[in-house]
């Protein structure tokens, strides 16, 4: 039976270490013994995971492999064909510097591509319900027509910033965050989704991305300059045609480098400007802080001077990943609701506004979730990363998509022929991207239709039976509180 005791220090034998992190779930005979799954296997976004959750990329990685191949092949040819001549004729420092640049480029590329860009985990059902209640109280419950888009205003450094509600993640997005429709995640300080690195570029990997394009600019210029030098020097001695015969790879290298230099160097310059003014590509394209919008419009996030902005972006503290990819799924902790069908979700939230239930969304979901089969070929690649990385899908057209949200009716990808490494966001006049302000349709309806919709509904471990067993556990928990 329950005793009254003082909340003594931990030395007391029956007082076990309190941990706010739930370790293992309580084992009861009612619970089925399900195999332990890691959280990345149940991740609701459209991402691919490798090496048991250590590596995280976007779904379409074809263009990333192209990037990798271009860099490896060009550098490889340079080291094989041009470096022997150059190191003998000029200095052996050339292959050494080239090697260092090459390693740095690859290192930063992998770091950009494989790390978590700053994904915001989706809200748990309790939080979502709480927010819904707050919004309904603020708006006043209305039925029959769709309420206006949910926004909150906040004043940052004297500028009024609108925080938008993300229907997929069920959170109010922090300032500068945006929802990437390709990866179906909200990303903090969202810059753009880069198909060339196969990942979003956000708060956590922006500095690596910048280092990558900067070092790649240097590498490209380096290779270009020294291949030209090599060809010229050799031509003086053996003639131009003989040179081409002896070193045919040089021609290929020159062509690749020539076309790459313009785009990569241009991109580096653009991002240097963004860093020094502390803006994201997203904000720059939308013209959020440009003086054209209004007289009093300025960037509230800028620290004032270029030096501080650069230091903050490149040397500032690196926040840890908010999604615990390699942790184990706890069946007793509330899991975020995956978006199933936009209409269903929206319909349920409408009716919930009239209910006083604490977690209305929990009850409405099980109908959809329980019977979904576990679709093979989804993101759960548990194999060792030494195995071949599968080529995912078809390569997207090589454009970068800085501003996409679920609200778009179609992905505005530009289908252009591209040769070499080219980025299109260096151009100024990119205004055909649809912004989230237009058409606030429930973004549960994925614009691409297709099989992508299925991947969200796989939550085999979360079913109404666990709700009942949870209730049993809680009763047992209370009973267990009775000491000896």
């Amino acid at each position: 039976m329950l005793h009254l005791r003082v909340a003594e220090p931990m030395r007391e034998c029956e007082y076990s270490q309190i941990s706010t992190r739930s370790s293992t779930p309580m084992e009861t005979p009612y619970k089925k013994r399900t195999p332990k799954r890691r959280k990345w296997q149940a991740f609701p976004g459209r991402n691919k995971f490798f090496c048991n959750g250590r590596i995280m990329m976007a779904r379409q990685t074809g263009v990333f492999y192209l990037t990798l191949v271009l860099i490896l092949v060009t550098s490889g040819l340079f080291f094989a064909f041009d470096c022997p001549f150059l190191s003998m004729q000029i200095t052996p420092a050339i292959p050494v510097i080239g090697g260092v640049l090459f390693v740095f480029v690859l290192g930063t590329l992998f770091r950009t591509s494989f790390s978590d860009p700053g994904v915001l985990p989706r809200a748990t059902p309790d939080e979502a319900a709480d927010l819904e209640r707050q919004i309904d109280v603020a708006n006043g419950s209305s039925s029959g027509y769709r309420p206006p888009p949910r926004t909150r205003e906040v004043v940052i450094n004297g500028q009024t910033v609108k925080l938008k509600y993300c229907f997929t993640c069920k959170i109010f997005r922090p300032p500068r965050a945006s929802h990437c429709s390709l990866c179906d995640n909200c990303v903090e300080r969202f810059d753009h989704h880069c198909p060339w690195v196969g990942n979003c570029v956000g708060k956590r990997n922006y500095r690596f991305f910048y280092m990558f394009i900067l070092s790649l600019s240097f590498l490209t210029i380096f290779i270009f300059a020294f291949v030209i030098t090599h060809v010229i020097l050799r031509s003086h001695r053996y003639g131009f045609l003989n040179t081409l015969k002896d070193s045919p790879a040089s021609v290929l290298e020159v062509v690749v480098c020539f076309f790459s230099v313009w785009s990569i160097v241009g991109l580096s310059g653009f991002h240097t400007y963004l860093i020094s003014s502390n803006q994201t590509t997203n904000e720059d394209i939308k013209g959020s802080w440009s003086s054209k919008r209004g007289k009093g419009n300025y960037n509230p996030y800028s620290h004032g001077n270029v030096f501080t902005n650069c230091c903050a972006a490149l040397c500032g503290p690196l926040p840890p990943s908010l999604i615990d990819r390699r942790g184990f799924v706890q069946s007793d902790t509330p899991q975020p609701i995956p978006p199933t069908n936009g209409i269903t979700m929206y319909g349920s939230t409408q009716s919930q506004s009239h209910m006083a239930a604490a977690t209305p969304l929990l009850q409405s979901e099980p109908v959809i979730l329980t019977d979904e089969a576990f679709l093979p070929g989804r993101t759960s690649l548990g194999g060792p990363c030494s195995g071949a990385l599968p080529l995912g899908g078809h390569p997207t057209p090589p454009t970068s998509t800085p501003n996409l949200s679920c609200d778009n009716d179609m992905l505005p990808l530009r289908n252009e022929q591209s040769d070499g490494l080219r980025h299109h966001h260096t151009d100024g006049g990119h205004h055909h991207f649809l912004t989230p302000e237009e058409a606030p349709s429930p973004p549960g309806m994925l614009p691409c239709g297709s099989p992508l919709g299925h991947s969200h509904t796989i939550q085999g471990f979360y079913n109404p039976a666990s709700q009942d067993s949870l209730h049993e556990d809680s009763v047992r928990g209370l009973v267990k509180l009775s000491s000896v």
Partner: protein
Amino acid sequence: EISAPWTFHNLQELRHSASLANKVFLQRDYSDGTTCRFQTKFPSELESRIERPLFEDTVKRLNIYYAEAEKMGGQSYLEGCLACATAYLIFLCMETRYEKVLKKIGRYIQEQNEKIYAPRGLLITDPIERGMRVVSLQLLLLLCVCVCERETDKEKHKDR
């Protein structure tokens, strides 16, 4: 000496029962930009449970810790440059300042739970477990307290 109303074997068990209980969420305060801060507004549901100064003190302390983690100063720049120079391999052996502060926050929350919140029937969840979106406070069921009180009465009668 009985100074607190009740204790419990395992906070884990309390969390199980708490998941059906009410939760109060403290949202983020973005008035200072994107840095991590939580609103210090005292929620009305907690009025009967905990004193306002204690609560505000906890939240303010959390905000101070988060500001410390994200502070951009000499130490963080040094760490950033060193990491860049070693191609970020240094993080294989050493943890970032941010991670160190997060661990400190975890310990602080645990200590606050043990000393202040659990005796009042509340549980704070570390915001990192909720993606830094909210500080979640679980209002535990009051059933335990009622049963306890009945037991003390019985004991009192027994002693007599």
